[in-house]
């Protein structure tokens, strides 16, 4: 049988961001695929060398449209390490609160995209309606739904007033109830199982070979989570669990993410309860001394790494950003091999695409 080439992207209803995957089909089976990235490369790392340490906060917030807060957190941590600055405890809790809310919002958005791509519009709508709750909470806290502009070098820009806490707790309770419904659906719905179980399998060895991070790695049995393995902010003072499954398919990735949503909601409550008093920011020196710093955070998609080198000047000498989306994306040709054409959409959605992160 002759091979048919099916182009997916750079413009295709399946992916909203520009990514190109060429599928080589024999009948309905994918025998090979070719991945091409770089359509939204913006040269952020180079651009960062042209801007001062403070201006760069706004720049790195725009690396990703979904997990914007975790990028600024990681960046600010690195700059604070260079300055040797002690950050007030309360600001760390505000940062963690937004990080966890962002994880909820990112995972629910992803579930909606997955459901849409497998032709299950109802779950798409439900997941995105539930996501609105987390967006509303974030808007209440920071004034922004997706880009919060909360982090500054030395702490955070905003405080969480006492009168907001009840509202946030109420929103969290609602979110928990909705997320439990979605979890129940993922665990029990037959037609969802038919489309996700055993699809796009990645083994433990594949995960290690490709350096896959985040929920995709945890769904294949790799027990990693930066929050626990190398605690940043004040995660060492919080009590939470990391979920690891061994199925390695799209269904396991869905389950891991939904369990994380519930865990994040619990974490938010804990953060609000244990939040210490005091100021939310410390004044930081303008001039950053020469040196190097590495900062790592657990974003919704996995480990985010920032390397910053300062030569004592006004601007950083070099910034390297490593996002989890790129390593997760690279596994796509491996996942797609041997799949049915109809499962390609599920497999591509399963890794949680973020082309903006991957290209930078």
């Amino acid at each position, binding site marked *: 049988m002759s091979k048919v080439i099916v182009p997916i992207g750079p413009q295709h209803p399946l992916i909203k961001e520009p990514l190109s995957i060429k599928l080589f089909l024999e009948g309905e089976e994918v025998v090979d695929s070719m991945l091409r990235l770089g359509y939204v490369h913006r040269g952020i790392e180079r651009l960062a060398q042209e801007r001062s340490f403070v201006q760069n906060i706004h720049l790195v917030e725009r690396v990703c449209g979904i997990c914007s807060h975790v990028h600024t957190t990681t960046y600010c941590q690195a700059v604070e390490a260079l300055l040797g600055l002690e950050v007030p405890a309360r600001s760390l809790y505000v940062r963690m609160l937004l990080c966890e809310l962002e994880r909820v919002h990112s995972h629910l958005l992803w579930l909606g995209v997955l459901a849409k791509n497998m032709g299950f*519009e109802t779950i*798409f709508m439900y997941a995105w309606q539930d996501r609105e709750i987390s967006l509303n909470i974030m808007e209440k806290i920071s004034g922004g739904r997706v880009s919060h502009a909360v982090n500054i070098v030395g702490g955070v820009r905003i405080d969480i007033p006492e009168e907001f806490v009840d509202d946030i707790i109420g929103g969290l309770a609602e979110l928990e109830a909705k997320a439990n419904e979605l979890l129940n659906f993922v665990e029990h719905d037959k037609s969802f199982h*038919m489309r996700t179980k055993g699809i796009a399998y990645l083994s433990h060895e594949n995960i290690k070979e490709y350096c896959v991070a985040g929920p995709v790695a945890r769904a294949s049995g790799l027990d990693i989570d930066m929050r626990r393995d190398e605690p940043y902010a004040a995660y060492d003072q919080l009590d939470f669990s990391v979920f690891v499954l061994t199925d390695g398919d799209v269904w396991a990735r869905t389950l891991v993410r939904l369990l994380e949503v519930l865990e994040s909601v619990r974490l938010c409550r804990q953060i609000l309860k244990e939040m210490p008093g005091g100021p939310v920011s410390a004044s930081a020196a303008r001039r950053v001394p020469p040196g190097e710093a590495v900062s790592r955070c657990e974003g919704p998609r996995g480990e985010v790494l920032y390397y910053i080198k300062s030569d004592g000047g006004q601007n950083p000498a070099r910034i390297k950003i490593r996002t989890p989306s790129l390593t997760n994306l690279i596994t796509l040709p491996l996942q797609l091999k041997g799949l049915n054409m*109809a499962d390609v959409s599920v497999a591509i959605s399963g890794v949680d695409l973020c082309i903006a992160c991957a290209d930078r």
Partner: protein
Amino acid sequence: MAFSAYVFPGFMFIVALSFLFEWFDRKLIARFHGRVGPPWYQSFADFIKLLGKEDITPLNTSPWLAAALPLTAFASVATAATNIPVAGSQLPGFQGDFIVVMFLLSLPSLLYFLAGWICSGVYSTLGGNRSLLQYFSYEVLFTLAVSGAAIAGGSWTIIDIVTQQSVTGINAIPQMPGLVLAILGLIGKLKRAPFDIPKAKSEVVAGPLTEYSGKKLAIWNLSIQVQTVTGIFLLVNCFFGGLFPANRAIQLGLFLLLAVGLQAALSLISAIYARLRIDQLIHLTWRVLIPLTLVHISYLVLA
């Protein structure tokens, strides 16, 4: 004669209803999703808008053939529609019109496949292949399941099947499995979710209709809408015939109510399942549903 062919219960009535049914479907699914849904004239407005859009025929495609396919599809479903009794009134039927209607209703699926085949686009071709594969699975199911009513009525004429039921009682109760199987077959025929495999947006964009635009696409959409209403009316006649009290207005109201009920069932099924894969659909129909239908038909014939 001309009135019943063109106005009621013929062409105009069915086309007007098909817009309303499509709106009802979209509105209901929107409510299931937790959305607001479109206003009542939305499907008509969409039709008018498409008529005014630029009509593009891809290179290497015969413009005559590209235009003939939607028109033939529409002509066949419209002919089928005028031969379906609405609340007992129709054009004077003829012996064996049941078979003709079944044929005319299945014709658009073949034309749909051809629409994918005449375009050289890869999505159209893939979608066309899928629609043909799907055709072999649901068509047998639908035809067998609906034939149960004809076997019980002892006639291949729709109006006879309807009047027979006023003596024996409606078919829906003794033939409940037949009705359910026929609804599943109809979903496959109409390529509705969860059997919308040939036009799965995230895989093959819009399937065979990917390269269609403007007026031709409008006619395609209209013929699929008319096919929906006609299929639903056929099921109402075959499974709920004879439920007709003397008053004409009540008769028509009851008939439309049953049709709306079936449309609601279709919408509900669309909203609560994920799309199947083509191999899963074929396994489902040939290993489960068609054997069930055969058991059902054998029971009807032997009992």
